[in-house]
């Protein structure tokens, strides 16, 4: 009796294990006729799927609240397609996406960005070059997402980051938005002297430190002759940050000494956001994606933004440009449906929906955006076209960005010099380019 019970238990355990491997293995072991029948059944199921709801996965690193109107539009205009939006924080996005791509279960639509060229080179993304909707976009918007003349993603709204300031604090202290780096440094000192925390900074992940270095690079390098075409040579491993960003890095150190303190390394970006929203700090560097969150935390907050400043008499820069984009997983089982989503996104209505929750400009031809008065101080910057995010167009954008973040933290902690930061970034670029070389 015990022997029989043991055998039954063993067989049950083994069966449950094998069942977990799924129906596909069973399909492989059935006879040809059954396979043909299964194929026909699968095809008819697919037909049924396109007639009824097809579920597609859409993974993005901008929060659902910043895509709410757009997602609602997709639901209304594409009733047969159920878009399952998955938000993954930007800190982990590459980690999670890369592991899903390697495992073969990546989402159908990916909100891409600085990784687009790497993913395209590896064959993960669908070539969109011949799609009709691609022609509706401006070439400048498609450039960052193209490899060897082929387009692998379509741009979402542009993004930009500057420095938000509390208008009430500025008004009460007779202060104005600065027009140069020296004025900005003076502003920091003025606020500090008045017992007001000048700027809320969450340097725990290093992002804000890198953005400020970028701000200096834009003002002191990219607006010079040497800045033209640098990103292309950087992507070939020829251009070096250590050779070209020397002036920018000097200005960064000058700014860092007045703007950042080591205790900011122990504050996260969310905690800094809270400080600014609750009026404990006069300024906070961020972009339109945080406006709704700041207003939710403090509906009475009077917001305005100015750009990253440089030399006196020259127009400042905003960090931004082509932001995220929409890519289609080349191995998606719902490519037709994914293309429908991208086709709808390339309409004025969809672009307006995107911009409603996350201000930016559209790369769709003929679409104009009325900017919120919050950005009045940035009008000169917008008109000059001084918006750029260099690392988005870098082949090794994400790894180099992360290296800059970490190394700049070490500079703030006093354990590294700024020159070494640029050397570290160049080295990381070389390593990644070498790892993907033929």
């Amino acid at each position, binding site marked *: 009796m015990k*022997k029989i019970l*043991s055998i039954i238990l063993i067989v049950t355990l083994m069966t449950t294990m094998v069942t977990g491997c799924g129906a596909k293995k069973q399909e492989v072991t059935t006879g040809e006729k059954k396979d043909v029948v299964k194929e026909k059944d699968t095809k008819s199921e697919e037909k049924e799927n396109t007639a009824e709801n097809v579920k597609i996965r859409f993974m993005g690193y901008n929060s659902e609240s910043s895509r709410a109107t757009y997602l609602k539009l997709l639901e209304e205009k594409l009733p047969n397609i159920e878009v399952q939006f998955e938000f993954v924080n930007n800190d982990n996005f*590459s980690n999670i996406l890369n592991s899903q791509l390697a495992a073969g279960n990546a989402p159908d639509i990916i909100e891409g960005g600085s990784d687009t060229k790497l993913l395209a080179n590896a064959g993960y993304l669908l070539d969109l070059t011949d799609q009709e909707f691609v022609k509706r976009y401006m070439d400048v918007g498609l450039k960052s997402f193209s490899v060897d003349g082929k387009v692998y993603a379509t741009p979402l709204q542009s993004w930009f980051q500057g420095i938000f300031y509390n208008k009430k604090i500025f008004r009460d202290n007779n202060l104005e938005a600065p027009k140069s780096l020296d004025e900005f440094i003076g502003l920091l000192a003025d606020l500090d002297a008045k017992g007001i925390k000048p700027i809320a900074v969450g340097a725990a992940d290093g992002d804000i430190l890198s953005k400020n270095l970028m701000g200096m690079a834009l003002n002191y390098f990219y607006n010079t002759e040497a800045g033209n075409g640098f990103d292309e040579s950087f992507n070939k491993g020829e251009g070096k940050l250590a050779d070209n960003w020397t002036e920018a890095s000097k200005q960064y150190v000058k700014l860092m000494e007045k703007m950042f303190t*080591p205790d900011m*390394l122990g*504050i996260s970006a969310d905690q800094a956001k809270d400080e600014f929203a609750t009026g404990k700090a006069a300024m906070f560097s961020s972009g339109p994606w945080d406006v709704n969150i700041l207003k939710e935390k403090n509906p009475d907050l009077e917001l305005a933004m100015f750009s990253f400043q440089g030399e006196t008499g020259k127009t400042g820069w905003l960090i931004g440009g082509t932001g995220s984009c929409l890519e289609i997983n080349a191995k998606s089982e719902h490519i037709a449906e994914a293309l429908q989503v991208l086709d709808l996104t390339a309409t004025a209505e969809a672009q307006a929906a995107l911009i409603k929750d996350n201000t930016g400009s559209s790369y769709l031809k003929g679409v104009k955006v009325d900017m919120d008065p919050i950005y009045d101080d940035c009008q000169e910057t917008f008109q000059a076209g001084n918006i750029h995010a260099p690392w988005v167009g870098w082949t090794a954008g994400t790894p180099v960005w*992360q290296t800059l973040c970490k190394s700049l933290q070490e500079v703030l902690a006093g354990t590294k010099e700024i020159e070494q930061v640029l050397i570290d970034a160049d080295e990381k670029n070389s390593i990644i380019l070498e*790892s993907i070389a033929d």
Partner: protein
Amino acid sequence: MITRKKEQVFFWMIAPSFIGFVIFFILPAIMSLGYSFTNWSVYKVDFNFIGIKNYLKLFNDAGTMAAVGNSLRYAVIITIIQNTLAIAFSVFLSKKGLMVNLVKTVLFLPAVLSILVVGYLWSYMMTSSDSGLLNSILHTFGMGSVNWLGNANIALYSVLATQVWQWTGWSLVIYIANLKSIDGALYEAANIDGASGRQVFLNITLPLLYPAVSFNVLMSLIGGFKIFDSIFAMTGGGPGYATETIMTTLIRIGFTEGRNAYSCAFAMIFFVIVFVITKIIQFLFSKWEGSVL
């Protein structure tokens, strides 16, 4: 008496778990070893055999070696502190009583919480911003703020402290169980002989705790080497690379940078380090066990 037939039954009973272990652990480990000799990257699907180049690069990579150093330091320190505290608490809490049971529960409770939740909660308590609880307490006593998670010299120890708080209770439970198995007659005999508390602890309690000690020390060491969740939640490996450990570096290289083969080589090195240390600890404890018996 166990017969061959009964052994066969036992074998078939553990077969499902064994098969799962082979599929989800042994096979991937062997595959990782194989990949470590290639240049496979997420961004380069076609890869080639490159010999030991990944291993040579690893030993010349200052960042990677620093991560190994951080992990070693973290594992040793948390093992010593956690087990010392757990043994001390277990001796004091080995008596019966309502308050004793309450204290045991309070000490064990943190071990029930999710590591990530604990990490995020502590990161808010340790923040340098005005809302930080720990610094607010220090200000109450007239002391200055401490940059718990932003100071490269103390960030790792700040994370370590939260993990000691979370896992000492876990070790405590195991030590208490072992303590209960020690024959009370030994303590009576020692009492009759006039042994002091210190002599009783050093000559009876501690030696007979060797099963729990060897288990907890091994688990603490291995757990210390594998630390990831709390570092991820509290510092992200920063500031800079001050709290980067073997696991955070593995994730960064393997997933963020997509250098899977290089990451596999690092995983192999990690396996060898943990294996060697485990064998050393097991050897030392077997010597200790021999001297006790």
